[in-house]
Every structure is written in C-alpha cells, then in structure tokens.
C-alpha cells in the first residue's frame, strides 16, 4: 500500500498499484450475540441477589464481566462495586445501577471479543514502513469495525472508503475475507481480480481454506504472495505459472524435509516457463491420457405469481480436466456454437479460430481449468423451465397460508435432483407450522425465519410434492399507526407477507441450451485419448414471486 506521506510525483504516474492483503475470519455475529444474551440473562438474574449475597459461581461470573471495564475496578471488582454502593439504596435501584454497569461491560467485552476474532490471520505489505504501521494500526481495525457493523457479510460494500485516504477493497470467499488496501487510483476490478486470483491459488496449493490451514502453510502463502504481487503490482495470477515458481506443499515434501533436514534442496529447482504457452510446461507425462469436459449451465429466472417468466437467462461454464502428455493441441467443436452470444475464454484459446470457424482450438493447461464461460442468447432457448413451483397465498386476518407445489417442467425426461425451496418469512412471523407430503423441511429462526423444503429427487408426474406453510403475523405498532383511524381492523402491510421463494435444483445429463460437444480432436500427438463429457443444468438465481 502506498500512503500519501511518502509517495512522490513519480509514483503517482505509476498508477499506484499497491495492495495490502489481510485475511480475516468472518465473524459469527449471531452466535456471539446469543452467547452474550445468555450471559447477560444469567447476570441479571443474579443481580437482585448481589446486594444480599453472591454465590461463588455468580461472583466469578460478575468478576469476569467487570474485569474488562476499562480498569474501573482494579481487583475483585464485585466486592469493590458493592462496597462503593451506599447501603441505603434499595435493592431495585441497586439492580438498575449494577445492571447498567454490566451492560457497559458487556458492550466492551463484546467489542473486545469480536476484535480478537477479527484480527487478520496474515498480512503482507508492499509499502514503506510508515504506511505499514498506519495500515495495520489504523486501517485494518477500522475495516474490521466496518465489517462488524453489518448483520450479514453479504451486505458490505466491496469498495469502502477507509480512514487516512485509503480505500479498502475486499472479497469474501467461504469463511475468509481477503482485503486489499489501496491509497491511490487503480481500477478496482484489478484489485478484486487479484484477490480472487489469490483465493484460487491458495485453494489449489492448500486445498480447503480456513484460518487453520492458512496458518499451517503460511510460508507457502507468503511465497505465493511475493510471486503474485511485486511492489504492489499484480504480476501473475495464473496458477500454472505459479506452480513453476513455488512448489506445491505435499505430505511427501514435508516428510522429505524432516528427513533431510532441509526442504526443497532435494527438489528440482524452480523454473519459469518462458515459452509461448506459459500455461503449459514442457515434458508433461501421464500414463493414461484423459480429457474430461463438463458443461454446467445455470438458469437465472424470475417467475411471477401467475407463472409467467419475468426474466430468464441461461449461462454456462465449460470446465475441463486434462491429463494429457506432451504438447497436445485440441479442437473442440460444439453442435450449436451460434446460440452462444457472449463467450469468455481461457487465455489458451485461439480467439480468431473461434470467430472464424466456430471451433475452440487450444493447447490445454495440465489439470483442471475453466475453458470458457458463455451466455446463451435468450431467443434461442425454449421458454419452458425444468421446474415449476406454484405458490398460492391466502390470509385471514393475521393468519397467513402459503401453499407450494413443485412440478417437473421440460428437462429431457430426467429427474430433477437436489430440489431445495427456500421461503424467507417476514420478521413478524410467529407460530410457524409446516405440512409436507414429500421431502423434508426445516424451519430456521434467525433474525428472520425461513422455511427450507428439500427433496432429493423430483420425477415427472409427481403429484404429491406439496408444502403448506402457515404462520401468524404480529400486529406491529407501526402497522396500526399506518392503518390510521379510518380502518380499525387489521390492514395488511407490505412487510407482513412472504413475497418470494428461492429454488435450487440440479438436472444431470441435461443441457438447457441443448449445446452439446460434437467432437474433440487431438492434434500434434499420436496417442489415443480417452474423452468424457458431462452435462449439468443448475439453478442460478431462481426466484418465484408470490
């Protein structure tokens, strides 16, 4: 990160690509809150007794709670507190006073607790010393505070103006937050793309990412970062290039390291592939030459209450898994390339060939990679959906009923798998009752309740797949006020009704856009190639409105 203090004019021309990267664990706010609520109830119950006598357990609890109150009570805080209080105060007001003290303590305590949980796991800086201090002492704490101010990580703004004229750009992947801090103009997508690249590289190197695994492999993480970013400028994010520079940690590596006392000395020296195909090293050998293609299509749709499709989009990814020897050159032909109206390719694809001949020609990188992602021209696809979810809502006064039924649409006669219908209920909903004939359901009560209905498979002609949700709505003061004097009876308010369901599903062996792989030809190598193709259609953001 470059801060203003030491940045010269020359630097500002160089467009200031400077990042810091921090890993932060996502806070489980709700859990923490529930925990503290429990503690507080306990403490409050204990308080009326506090004036009279305290059990040992309660005293420890109070001690613990009061300990962190800014050094107000140095030792044995409870005793101290009780001694300070005039004897004449009646128990009720004592309760209030101690209660408020405890409230404050809880606030502080909660604060510290969250703070501890949010310390970055790893930071790396590319700036001068002063800026490093500023970043780790001011900006990062400010950012953690910012994250904490949101109930859901989902709601944070990825580009946030932080103190000291810096900008925090972050992404969240699983339970990790990657933060880049920049202090000068730089296209934000470059930072996001870099962070994304860091996440991908780490996933490839470490596997399942978590705070623990990152700590375990922090040397690798450090090495990767110093190869990916040089003095704050993104250098490379391609994992096939990185693999040449930083060895992939493995169990064998570690054992060897332990045996020989030194690591990597015994390994082959890292080298850079400077050929015209930087994504593929020379001399790769596999005993079985295999190539797999996965075409995964996602349907984004909004369906209205009357069953009409409001918006509908199909996009897909062509994922590949390559285990081929030598320097193969592949030609992948699709049956209907013309329906793909927007395609993004892996750098290995020759775009000219695609534009002129409609075939994808490429020298594949080794291992798994995403060859292309595409969007299907909406006209070219049928306007029928693989699944239909109907909903009818009825209400009587404050009682609401939602009836849901799911039905197979058009999906090549295949069963629909992993069907999941999620219905968020309004925050005033209570007394939720669910009846369901097929599949299972769960009702979760968080900040807002929601009902999740899941079925392993849904077959065509299945009539029994129904779900009925009943709930009552608390009549809030606001609604009453809004109703006004004119109508004394209950008036439905916008917030009172469940408004949509989100549907998730998967159809194996079916391609929504009917795009298929026509042929896969191997050139420049003479061995026989084992080919495999899979098609999957999934729900992207599939929303049914009531």
């Amino acid at each position: 990160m470059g801060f203003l203090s030491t940045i010269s004019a020359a630097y500002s021309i160089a467009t200031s690509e400077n990042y810091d990267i921090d890993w932060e664990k996502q806070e489980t706010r709700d859990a923490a809150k529930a925990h503290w609520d429990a503690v507080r109830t306990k403490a409050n119950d204990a308080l009326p007794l506090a004036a009279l006598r305290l059990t040992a357990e309660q005293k420890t609890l109070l001690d613990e709670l009061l300990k962190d109150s800014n050094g107000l009570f140095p030792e044995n805080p409870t005793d101290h507190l009780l001694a300070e209080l005039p004897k004449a105060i009646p128990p009720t007001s004592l309760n209030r006073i101690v209660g408020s003290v405890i409230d404050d303590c809880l606030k502080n305590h909660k604060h510290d607790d969250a703070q501890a949980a949010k310390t970055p796991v790893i930071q790396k800086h590319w700036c001068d010393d002063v800026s490093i201090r500023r970043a780790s002492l001011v900006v990062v704490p400010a950012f953690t505070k910012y994250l904490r101010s949101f109930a859901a990580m989902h709601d944070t703004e990825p580009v946030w103006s932080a103190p000291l004229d810096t900008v925090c750009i972050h992404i969240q992947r699983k339970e990790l937050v990657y933060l880049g801090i920049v202090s000068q103009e730089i296209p934000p997508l470059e930072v996001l793309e870099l962070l994304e690249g860091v996440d991908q590289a780490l996933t490839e190197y470490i596997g399942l990412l978590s705070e623990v695994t990152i700590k375990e492999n922090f040397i690798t993480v450090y090495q990767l970062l110093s190869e990916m970013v040089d003095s704050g400028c993104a250098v490379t994010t391609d994992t096939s290039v990185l693999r040449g520079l930083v060895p992939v940690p493995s169990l064998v590596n570690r054992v060897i390291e332990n045996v020989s006392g030194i690591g990597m000395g015994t390994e082959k020296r890292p080298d850079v592939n400077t050929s015209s195909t930087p994504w593929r090293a020379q001399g790769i050998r596999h005993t079985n030459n295999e190539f797999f293609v996965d075409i995964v299509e996602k349907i984004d749709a909004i369906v209205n209450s009357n069953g009409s499709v409001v918006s509908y989009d199909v996009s897909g990814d062509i994922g590949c898994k390559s285990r081929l020897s030598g320097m193969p050159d592949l030609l992948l032909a699709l049956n209907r390339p013309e329906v793909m109206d927007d395609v993004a390719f892996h750098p290995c694809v020759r775009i000219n060939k695609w534009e002129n001949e409609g075939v994808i020609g490429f020298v594949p990188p080794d291992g798994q990679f995403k060859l292309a992602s595409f969007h299907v021209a909406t006209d070219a696809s049928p306007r029928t959906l693989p699944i239909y979810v109907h909903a009818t809502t009825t209400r009587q006064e404050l009682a609401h009923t939602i009836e849901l039924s799911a039905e197979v649409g058009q999906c090549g006669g295949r069963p629909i798998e992993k069907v999941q219908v999620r219905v968020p209920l309004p925050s005033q909903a209570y007394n939720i009752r669910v009846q369901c004939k097929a599949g299972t359901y769960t009702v979760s009560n968080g900040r807002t309740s929601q009902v999740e209905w899941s079925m392993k498979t849904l077959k065509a002609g299945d009539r029994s797949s129904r779900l009925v949700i009943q709930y009552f709505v608390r009549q809030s003061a606001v609604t009453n006020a809004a109703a006004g004097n004119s109508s004394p009876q209950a008036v439905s308010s916008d917030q009172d009704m469940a408004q949509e369901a989100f549907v998730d599903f998967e159809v194996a062996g079916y391609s929504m856009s009917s795009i298929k792989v026509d042929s896969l030809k191997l050139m420049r190598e003479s061995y026989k190639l084992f080919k495999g193709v899979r098609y999957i259609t999934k729900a992207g953001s599939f929303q049914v409105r009531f």
Partner: protein
Amino acid sequence: MAEYLSKAMALAQDAAKLSLRFSEGLVDNALEFGLDTPGGFFDNAEFKLTQVRKELGSGTDKEKVAGLKRLLAAIAKGHDASEYFADVVKNVASGNLEMRRLVYMYLLRYAEQEPDLALLSVNTFQRDLADSSQVIRAMALRVMSSIRVPVISPIVVMAIRKLANDRSPHVRKTAALAVCKLLRLDTSLRGELAVVVGGMLVENSPLAVGSVIRAFRAVSSPGQYDAVHVHFRRWCVMLAQLDEWGQVELTKLLTAYARTQFRCPGEEGARLDADHALLLHSMHPLLQSRNSAVVMAAVSALCHLAPASQRAAVARPLVRLMRSGRETGYVVLTNIHQIAQTTPAPFHAHVRSFFVTASDPPMTRRLKLRVLAALVDRQTVGILVPEIAGYTRSAHADTAVGAVGVMLACAQRLREATIDCFQSLLLLAARPGVREEVANAAMHAVRVLLLDGSVRDAQDRRAMTLYDILCYLARTLDRCRADVARAHVYALVAEFSQTKFGCLHGLDVLRAAVRSFRDEGPQAKMQVLELSARLMCLAPCGGRAAAEARAEAEAESKNTAEGKNAAESKNAAAASGPLAPVLAEHRELLAGLHAFAFTLARYDTSFDVRDRARTLRALCPLAGDEAHAEEMPRVLEMAKELIVSATTDMPAAADSHVLGAGRFTVASLSLTLGRPVAGYAPLADWPLENVRGVDRGASVANLGPGPGSGRNLGSPGSASIAGAISIAGISGRAQPSGGNADYSTPRSHVANNEEDLDAFLDSIDDSSSHAKMQNFAHAQQSLQKTAILYHQSNISSDSESTSESEEESESDDDDDDDDDDAAPVVGVSSAALGASESSESRNESSGSNDESKGEGNSQSDGQSDGQNESEDDERRPFIPAAQTNRHSPHAHFKNSSGSHSDDDDTSYPGTSMHSRPLIEDTSKYWQ
C-alpha cells in the same frame, strides 16, 4: 547405505506420526510428537522468539530454517521482529535455496529500518545476478530493488541495466518491475532510468511486455508519448497475445496515447484514422477475456475512444461481468450506471438483467434500480412499468423507494407514460399499509411532477385537473401518517394556494392541519407554518382591498386568458391573487388559525419547528407584532412577496446519490467511489486534428519470436497476428478492405440517435444536475431568508441607510466595504452564486465539445460547481434549463370545470420547483 537405511526408517516413522496427526486434525497434537509444523511456528511465534537467536546462530540449516520461519510467522501476524536483523543477515549467503528465500522475505520487510546492515547483503545479490538460473537472477534483482535504502540505488541501476538485456524474458520482466520500485524510492533517477526503459521498449516477449509498459508509464511524464509512436502498431497487434496483467497495462497506455493522437470520432462526417481503427479493432478480443480487469480496461478504452456505433459492443461483456459475483457485480454496476446515463441504447436489450432479485445485497439493488431509471425509454417502458410496480411492495424498503425513483424517471421522460405513472404514484402514496419511506418517496415524486409541469404537459388527453388532484391529495391527509409525505401535501397546497383549489379549500386544509398540529411530525409542522404564513400574506387586509383584489383578479384573468404578459400578472397575483376575495371573507378565521399555529409552534419540542416559526413570524408578523408593520411597510411587502413566491423546502430527491454526480474515466476507482481519489488523472482532450507525420509502424518488422520465447506453437494470437500485421501494413492511409474492413466504420454509419459519449458527458445530465440545482436552491433560499431577516433588523433601526446599501451592493458586488454589517453581503453573495451557477449551466449546455471538456477536467479537481469560472460573466437572473423546456411561467393549467369562470386564472405563479424565480423577483425589487 546404512545412512540411507536409517533415513528411510526415520521417514517411515515420521510418516506414521504425520498420518496420525492428520487423522486427528489437530495442530496442537503435532507439537507433542516433536514435530514443528509451520502451523506450530505460527501459533507459537511470539512465545518462542527467545529461541530464535540461538537457532539462527546454530550450525545446521534445519534449525536456522526453523528460526526463520518463527520470525516470519511473527511478521505475518503483525509483530515486530526487527531486532533479529543482524542474526538473519549473516545467513544471506547460504547455499540453501529455501533458507535464502526466507531470509529475503525477512530482509524486504526490515531493510528500511536497518540500512547499514542491509548493505552487508548486497554483495551476495550482486553475485547472484550472474547465476545461471533465471529464477535466481530474477530473485536477486527483485530483492535488491525492493530494499528501500537509497544508498544502494546506483548499484541497483547498474543491475537493472545489466539484466535489461538478459536472455530470459522472466529476468527482463523483473528488471522492468525493478525500475518502478527504484523510481518510487528515488525520483532523481528518472532520467537515467528513462534511457534504460527506452531501450527495453523493443521487448517482444508477451511475458515481459506488460512490465516494460508499466515501467515506461512510471518513467515518462504524462502526455509524453513520443517514444510510443514507433511501437504503436506492433503493440496493437500484440495485445491479444500478452498475459492478462500485461493486457491491462498496455490497454491503459494505448488509451491515454490515443487521446493525444486522434481526432474525436464523434465529429460529423469524420473518418477514423487507420491507426485509430486498428487500436479499436485490437480491443475487441479483450472483451472476451476471462479476467474482469482486462474486460473492464477494454470497455474503458472503447467508451473513451470509439465512435458511438462501436460502443454498443461493451454492453454484453459488462452484463456478463455483472453476473459474475457480488463484488465484481457491484463495481461493474457502478460503471454501467455511468455509461448508461450517457448511452443507454446498448443496454436496452438487457433491461431484464437489471431486474432486482430479493437475494441481491442492498448496494446492488440500489444500483440496479438506478440503472433501470437510466434505461427508461419507449421500448423498455412496457417491460419496466409492471415490474417496477411490483417492487413498490417489496419487503426491502430501499427497493421500494428506488422503484418510486424509476417511476418518476418514467413519468418525466416519457410523456405518454406520465399520467399512468403519476396516478400509480398518487395511489401508492395513499395506499393503506404502505411503508412510511415509500409513501414519502411517492409523495415527493408527485410533488416534483406537479411542480415541473410534466403532469400539466401530458394533461391534454385525460381529464384530471389540477383541482381534482389537489382535492385527492388533501383527502389523503386523513389516511396518510407519514410525516414527510404529509409535509409534501401541505407544501403543495401552499404552492398552489393561488389556484382554484387554494381559493376554495386552502383555508380548510389549514384548519384541519392546525387542529392536528399536535400530532404532526416536525417536517409536516414546518410546512403547516409555511402554508399558514403564505395564506396570511395572500389575504388582503380589509374589505375594500378585497373588492379591489376581486376586480383586479378579473382583469388579470382576462389578460392571462390571452396568454400575454403573464409574468407581470404573476407578480400582481402575488400581491393579491384570486385567492384574495375568498380569504378576505375569512380574514378573521385565518388570522386566528395563524396565531394559534404559531403559538403552538413556539413551544414545540423540535428546535427546527421553533426556528422556522420564529423566521416566519418575523417575516409575517402576528396581530400583536404589527407595530413593526407600520414602521417598515416596504420590508414587509418584500417579505410577503418572498413567502408567496418561494417554493418551500423541497427535501432532497428520494433517490439522491453521489454516483454519477461527477464523471470519471470508466473503470477507475474514482468512478466507483464517486469522488476523485488521489492519483486520479482524467484522460486528455482529443486533439483537434489527427496527429500526422509520425510513423507508427516502424517496429512491426521486428515482430517475431522474442529472444527467449520458444516454440510459437498454440499461441492464442498467432493466427491473428498474421492477419493483423497485414492490416497494419496496408493501413498507411488506405482504406482497409475485405473481411477486415468492419473495424473502420465510417462516421456516417453511426446511428444518429445515439449521442456522442463525450459530448453528452460534458453536458450536465438531467438527474444529477437536478439534484445539484435543488441543493443549491436550498442554500440560496436560506441565504436569502437570512439576508432579509438581517435587513429587517437593520431597517428597524435605520431603514433608509440599509436600503441604500442594498442598492449599492446590488449594483456592484465587490463593493462590500460599506459601513454596513455583513447582512447585504450575504444577500449579494447568494445572488452572485445564482448568477455564476446560471452562467455555468449555460456554458455547459451550449458550449462546444472542447470547451466544455476543459471545464469537465477542471471540475474533477475541485468538485464540480466551478463557481469562480464565470466571475466575469454578466449576471442575469437564472432560468433553469429544465424549466425553460417544460415549464414556462406563461402556461396555464387546463381547467375543465368551467363553473368558476372568474377563478379560471389558475396559473402557476412562482411555483417553480427551484427557487430561482426568488432571486429574480427580489433583485427586481431591489432595483
């Protein structure tokens, strides 16, 4: 052999332990086995730091590595480990590569603090610069250049010079990056490094070009692109071949370069320069990159360089990026928002992609709705309106409020949709069970539409008179409980107090309002006070006056029926409008209500309400205060006029936003944040003519495999290079032909309905200027009020001298060194502000492309208003641009119920949505 066996045994044992550890999955357990896992280093770093010195000094590499790992773990956690610098540095020459890497990592972090000790390591690096392995050469240079110690910079320059011609592109890349780092450390080296970089520009390896470009941009001063000419065509052709980050760098450079070389493609009948066309052509493949930064850089290039016809290509990739995730989607939406405001046409086909889903995060919802508002159009309105209507019932308040904003945009932009939207808004505002925020926003939209004349203009086909609308609104007061919404209704009644409705029912509304005054919110209370004050001002004092007023009103209605001198009649109406007769009859009642409301307000809990009451009471005295009135009738008259003509405070637009307020280079951080970020430099202006006489193809002949590049097999761009070279070859001045001709579309093909991006960007766009003007109007209005209050207080002491000083200050705005206090100055400054604002917007709307672009550039420095720019402009009363189009003060509301023929004069006196006429009126008065 025995040694190997024992090692194998150990290996087996360790493996067993490890598998156990993995099965238990606990890092802590690993420590019990005596195995220091890296995680162990990490967790215990600070506790074992004491051992580190011993370990670093030990004989075996293994212990040293362990110590180093401990140190690095401490650094990674943010602890200070600088005290071990000396112990670490002595291991720098180790033969063990892993250890050396660790040492390097440590060095980079702390070299700045210990420059003297860091110098010890330089010898090792220098030796490594000649190593046979490209990785080691590169690493040595990288570490050396990263040590932020100025003393060694001459050595680093030498190293860069040496490795700039290395046979490995990886090393050359590192050398280029080292230039950037060194320059940041010591700017005095710029000249020296520029020479080195100049030599590196011939780089042909796709791996290294990106870094060389970066170095070039670092060493060259902005606008100095002479060195680019010879490489231009070669780079255009290479672009598709480079690695992703290289593509981003090169695109940025070429975009900046092209803005200094070619004529603006938007001009009529202009044909693109062949090189310009080549550049645009080479951008298109980048739109298909998987890397969002590359796509965005290409989009930025096309947006700022291409003629409108080619700009349509950016829509599809942007929509794809928008779907690609929460974070990317957000940034892309901010860009789409800005692009769509100027060139919405390409996005019309994708309008459904911007429909809000309930799972979108708030910021995405907000932006999508803004984009939808920008995309309102004849083609899209049919799809949009039903969808938007659904949003108003959304569980998310912000979605519903945003939907109201889109409806407002529909109503304002499309005349045929105005009435439908207006009616939906009316119904929405009063719908039972509607959220307070939504009701507020809807009522705000209703008020905007009534005031800016959209409804009146669209009125021809339907029979919904202003009278009916206002009656409906007044009735909503029975149901609607939202404070701001009620405030808007009261404000509307006040603003239309001189129309038929105001005459007949204004007093009724006031009576009801005073009765419920206690229960109103602060906003509504303030509006009630203003309504009351306005009615008071409109009511003439006695019966004789009433009769006169009636006669006058009749005369005026005749005048205005002819549609002439309405401006004068407006002023006259302000003094004694058609309202006068009605109010005159109930003067007593009105005075009572007025006094009652102001008494209540005086003891209100809200500071703002008390303040407003005090202000208005000073301007429009109560019965008891009337002693003043006789002393200074002129001031009171002025105050009256002020109250009557001023629109009351219009709360900021429901969908007020920072985004789009300024305009920034597409893809920049400044655009996303909506404010200029340090280091932001706008693109240069187009030159008036293409720069001729430079050879941009000189280095194409050199194109071929770079020194280090191996087989050209399977390179993605290899096929395209051949084709593109031929283009570059023939494109001296000739028209490219054949299959490649499409990239040089002549200007005449450009669809006319798509406005030129830059031209459009330069003129203020409707929505943002709207918000700006509004805010400005507020400021002005309050200033004006303050000024007059001051006047009043002055006048009460010495009225003559003050009025003199007013005239003086009016005639000369610099003349503020009078014996008077600050009061007139305030008034004058607000008038001056008005004038400068007006002249600025005149410039912006009518100025030619280049002029206004210059203005735009300077704006980005100092946040918009640019008030000082037009100091020397002659001052004129301001007429907002939006108003002159839609709302002329001469127009009249169509009155369909002919029963009140003498009240037919239902003009909109002084009811513009901005308070500009206020300035006009008062300045006239002062003259």
